[in-house]
């Protein structure tokens, strides 16, 4: 089954509304990253957040490692927040480590 599950799959907001994106993962993670993909395709790292809460601007990420979940909160959404948000966890495969990705949450913020 999917090792990283994101919800909701898609979300439509009116500008100014808040959003809460969820990420649940099935195995212990040593690393968790939230990414934002621009509509044009560029992927940007938002948070590298193994545990706890981090803030940047209108974004807040909270990860509870022992409960295997993380959330991304967007406050006062803007149209420029539209895009896809990915959660990814680190997993060791043998001696190597790789990111396991969720399928993303597609966010549309309407003016």
């Amino acid at each position, binding site marked *: 089954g999917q090792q990283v599950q994101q919800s909701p799959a898609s979300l439509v907001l009116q500008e100014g509304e808040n959003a809460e994106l969820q990420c649940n993962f099935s195995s212990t993670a040593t690393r968790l990253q939230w990414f934002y993909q621009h509509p044009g395709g560029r*992927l940007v*790292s938002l948070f590298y957040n193994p545990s706890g809460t981090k803030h940047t601007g209108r974004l807040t990420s909270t990860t509870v490692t022992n409960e295997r979940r993380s959330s991304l909160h967007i406050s006062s959404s803007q149209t420029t927040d539209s895009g896809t948000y990915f959660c*990814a966890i*680190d997993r*060791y495969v043998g001696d190597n480590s790789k990111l396991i990705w969720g*399928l993303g949450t597609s966010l549309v913020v309407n003016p």
Partner: protein
Amino acid sequence: DTTVKQNPRYKLARVGKPVNLICSQTMNHDTMYWYQKKPNQAPKLLLFYYDKILNREADTFEKFQSSRPNNSFCSLYIGSAGLEYSAMYLCASSRGLGDAEQFFGPGTRLTVL
């Protein structure tokens, strides 16, 4: 400077022809990755270099090659492009493995006709 650069940004290729994509970073990162991203799908790891050691994913082993002539540069090579290779190709780098944040480039959008 946390920039990862990719060239070209857009690439048009013919079926059966080779494709070479370039990535560079100046952060002295040990690891460089190549991902394939198709619409409505999560990025798919193709391969990565940890220092000079190339690791290729089992299901894409024969489809992609890569070289890393020095710490800053990494290429992705497709010997014979097929229609299914049309995608965004994302390069990323990180300091080490395992617990290091990955930084992504802007991507190269490859269209195979």
